[in-house]
């Protein structure tokens, strides 16, 4: 293997000068093939989608807390969908649907994994760029196109897709059942098909780059955990996204060409439809075959980022590196065989429910190992509480709080009465929504200097974190109780059931916390934008980190390093490592970058 890697390094040394050819505005900023520029494009597109997604959630939170109340702002934003400032019931479902779609796919898949896989895989592996810069560029622009189509779908006559982000047919297949299932759903499906193509191109590129383009000395067991997480995430994406594509294509056929893959025996608005023999349960299987791994596609990169940021800022090696890698792989493997826990009461064979309960609860084991390893990483550290570090700690907190309730939902018995209630909403928002967002923020604060050559303002970062942290728990902790009281999700209002009357208070509390947390994101946006232009210029290695990206010059150019690519001599986590005499390995410095050769007498721990 090492000879093979050596050959690669040589090759790169030969052509390192190729970045000197002339770049135009178009090739540098628009159709760029440089992974650093593409990562910025992903981040900014993801953030814009995030603003829209979060704004939508605030709008429907207003409706849930004060049903029927008039909010002029809603009329301004939604126009004829909110006559006199009262949101229409179809629009409510559309907002819930598009909020879910945007947050899961556009923000937390593309915005998180797309941004940091692109930025870090070449830089931390020691490569001049992705294996194929061209495919990488195509991948971003397909993502851009799918975002644009999704946004266009908001403006169609009958309204956007409104069947929930899971778009279960027949509701999503029949415009007779719901106006959003007309043109809005067509655009949703087209947008997602393009999104999947984008995601596959990106993932294949990440996999090839990690396998083939590691610099000399960078064995798989010396890879930072970020790269392990991105690598495994890309593999799950390649395995599961095509299944969603086929589900989407079959649904398009049912909708437009009269096939009956998912539809059978339907009588609607006074007529019997011709469909016969299909099964909506089949769609549920296909959807969740992607849908569940998708949760980990969202979460694993966030956990990878946390591992890196936490270790760097704790000035300690990540605890149990090999167990962390094993957990990532175990979670990835298990994630592909647990999809049925979304379908315990779908009408599928109850025996399958037993199997999926078993595999689902197994996934708690590697997750628990990861949580304990993070906690031990903090133990006896010298914690540098930078904003990125705070978000990493916050992630572990919400990952535990949200993950634990998974024990309830993964148990087929207990799922019966909380399935599709607000208990589920609270659970997955904490464990994948908030946790992954924290991972995204941790990554942005930590690698902002690498991306934009300037530092973000730390005090605004602190305000952002603390308000968000209080808001997130304030929103989602009480929400568990709403679910256990039996309130179903995706209800436009709860006023039709007197038994839910006394929960209005909880909903108001939740909405207030949501508005506060939403306002805190404006602080982040301000900090992000102003720091791009006016932030304090960064040093080359502001966080005193070991990984290779900080050995690259601050100045960006295609190729990453002037001269030879650094050679790697150790793993990424030699923080506060001491020699037998008690001194740091490099006297006066508590970190040893990966490209520093082993010292004489230095003990190398299993790497």
């Amino acid at each position: 293997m090492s000879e093979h890697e050596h050959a690669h390094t040589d090759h790169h040394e030969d052509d390192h000068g190729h970045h000197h050819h002339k770049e135009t505005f178009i090739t540098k900023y628009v159709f760029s093939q440089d992974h650093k520029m593409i990562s910025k494009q992903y981040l900014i597109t993801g953030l814009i989608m995030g603003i829209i997604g979060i704004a939508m959630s605030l709008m429907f939170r207003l409706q849930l807390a004060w049903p029927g109340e008039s909010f002029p702002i809603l009329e301004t934003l939604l126009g004829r969908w909110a006559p006199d400032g009262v949101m229409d019931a179809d629009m409510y479902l559309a907002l819930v649907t598009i909020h879910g779609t945007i947050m899961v796919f556009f923000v937390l898949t593309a915005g998180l994994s797309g941004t940091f896989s692109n930025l870090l895989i070449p830089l931390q592996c020691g490569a001049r760029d992705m294996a194929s810069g061209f495919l990488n560029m195509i991948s971003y622009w397909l993502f851009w196109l799918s975002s644009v189509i999704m946004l266009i779908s908001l403006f169609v006559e009958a309204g956007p897709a409104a069947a929930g982000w899971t778009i279960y047919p027949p509701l999503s297949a029949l415009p007779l059942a719901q106006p959003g299932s007309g043109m809005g759903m067509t655009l949703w499906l087209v947008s997602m098909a393009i999104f999947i193509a984008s995601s596959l191109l990106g993932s294949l590129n990440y996999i090839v780059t990690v396998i083939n383009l590691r610099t000399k000395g960078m064995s798989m067991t010396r890879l930072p955990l970020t790269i392990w997480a991105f690598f495994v995430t890309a593999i799950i994406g390649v395995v599961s996204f095509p299944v969603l594509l086929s589900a989407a294509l079959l649904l398009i056929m049912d909708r437009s060409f009269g096939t009956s893959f998912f539809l059978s025996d339907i009588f609607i608005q006074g007529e019997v439809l011709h469909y016969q023999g299909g099964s909506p349960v089949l769609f549920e299987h296909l959807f969740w075959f992607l849908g569940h791994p998708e949760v980990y596609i969202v979460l694993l990169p966030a956990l990878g980022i946390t591992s890196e940021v936490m270790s760097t800022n704790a000035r300690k090696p990540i605890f149990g590196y090999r167990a962390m890698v094993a957990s990532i792989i175990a979670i990835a493997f298990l994630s592909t065989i647990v999809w049925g826990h979304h379908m315990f009461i779908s009408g599928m064979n109850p025996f399958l429910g037993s199997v999926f309960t078993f595999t689902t609860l197994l996934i708690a084991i590697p997750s628990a190992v990861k949580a304990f390893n993070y906690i031990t990483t903090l133990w006896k550290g010298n914690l540098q509480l930078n904003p990125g570090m705070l978000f990493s700690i916050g992630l572990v907190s919400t990952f535990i709080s949200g993950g634990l309730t998974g024990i309830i939902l993964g148990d087929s018995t207990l799922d019966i009465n909380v399935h599709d209630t607000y208990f589920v909403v609270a659970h997955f928002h904490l464990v994948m929504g908030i946790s992954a967002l924290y991972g995204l923020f941790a990554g942005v604060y930590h690698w902002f200097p690498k991306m934009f050559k300037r530092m973000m303002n730390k005090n605004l970062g602190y305000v952002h974190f603390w308000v968000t942290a209080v808001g997130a728990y304030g929103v989602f902790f009480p929400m568990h109780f709403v679910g256990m009281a039996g309130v179903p999700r995706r209800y436009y209002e709860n006023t039709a059931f007197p038994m839910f009357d006394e929960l209005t208070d909880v909903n108001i509390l939740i909405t207030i916390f949501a508005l506060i947390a939403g306002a805190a994101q404006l602080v982040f946006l301000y900090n992000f934008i102003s720091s791009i232009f006016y932030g304090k210029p960064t040093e080359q290695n502001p966080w005193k980190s070991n990984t290779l990206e900080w050995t690259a010059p601050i100045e960006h150019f295609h190729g990453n390093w002037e001269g030879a690519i650094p050679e790697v001599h150790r793993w990424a986590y030699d923080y506060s490592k001491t020699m037998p005499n008690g001194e740091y390995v490099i006297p006066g410095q508590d970190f040893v970058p990966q490209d520093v050769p082993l010292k004489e007498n230095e003990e190398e721990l299993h790497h």
Partner: protein
Amino acid sequence: MTVLLTLAILLLIAIAIWQMTKIFELSQINAEVSQVATDKDNKYNGILMFVFLIFIYGITIFSFAKYSKTLLPVAASEHGADYDQLMWVSFAIIFFVQTITQALLHYFSYRYRGKKGNKALYYADNDRLEFIWTIIPVIVLAGLIIWGLYTWTNIMDINDEDDPLIVELYAQQFNWTARYGGADNVLGEANVRRIDIARANILGIDETDPNATDDVIAKELHLPVGRKVNFKFRSQDVLHSAYMPHFRAQMNCVPGMTTEFSFTPTITTADMRQDPDVIEKVKRTNAIRAKRAAAGEENSDPWEFDYILLCNKICGKSHYNMQMKIIVETEEEYNAWIEGQQTFAQTMAMQ
């Protein structure tokens, strides 16, 4: 109240923005200040980490104190008791783990906050620790899995023992219909292709099927207490989910197939209304409704407790109001009620 809350929110947001701009201005004055955490930052944020732990515990205690009473009352079905017990044990485990891990996480963040000159411990691995926190979840989860699967298998074992009452729940946008097997306790064949709105055959029942003649169709679900009920679920248009939270029962209704669930109601509606928790809940709810009535708002009639069937799978515009009343009564009351209903044959004859 609403206006006041809105104003309070706006005020809070305004204060937050004002404070933030102030912080930013302050940080601008010291533009040379490093944007990397200093000892002072570590100290304040470390302390805040500890405060945050108290916040997490606080919001937990607050939620339990204030919202526990809003949860569902005692389970009104036979398997519901097992369900509640398993739920209770799972929650006990969850809260135990949550309390300890959050404490460790936030306490360590506070205790080991960075300071110049401090030396972190180079501690990369410990196989014994890893083993401990792999094996403990394995044992606990194995217990939960076995218990859960045992209960699940019992609940989902739908059979014809003990002479169950056969009831079909039929879902459509946006209402429910119940159909009883009638005197022979057998449902007649049905398919959406036989629906004849003109003749009021809304469930598509096969008129030539002899089993169908005595079927009873109703818009309220009456169940005799203590007798097992086998439900057959159908849907004519999109997915719905029959959710009966008081009985810890739920099953999706899928067009093109029949799904099943079974439970035995154990508490009549009349008895449930006498349950102390339910009495309290009704009292609190009616206080809210009385306030609404005083303000001249809608939806303010006094409420009497009833079991309810809700739709719990997004099904379109009026998903939020797709419901049916469930009445659990004594055998005699149930018999009297069903005697008074028209059979399918009678309804058809009237056309």
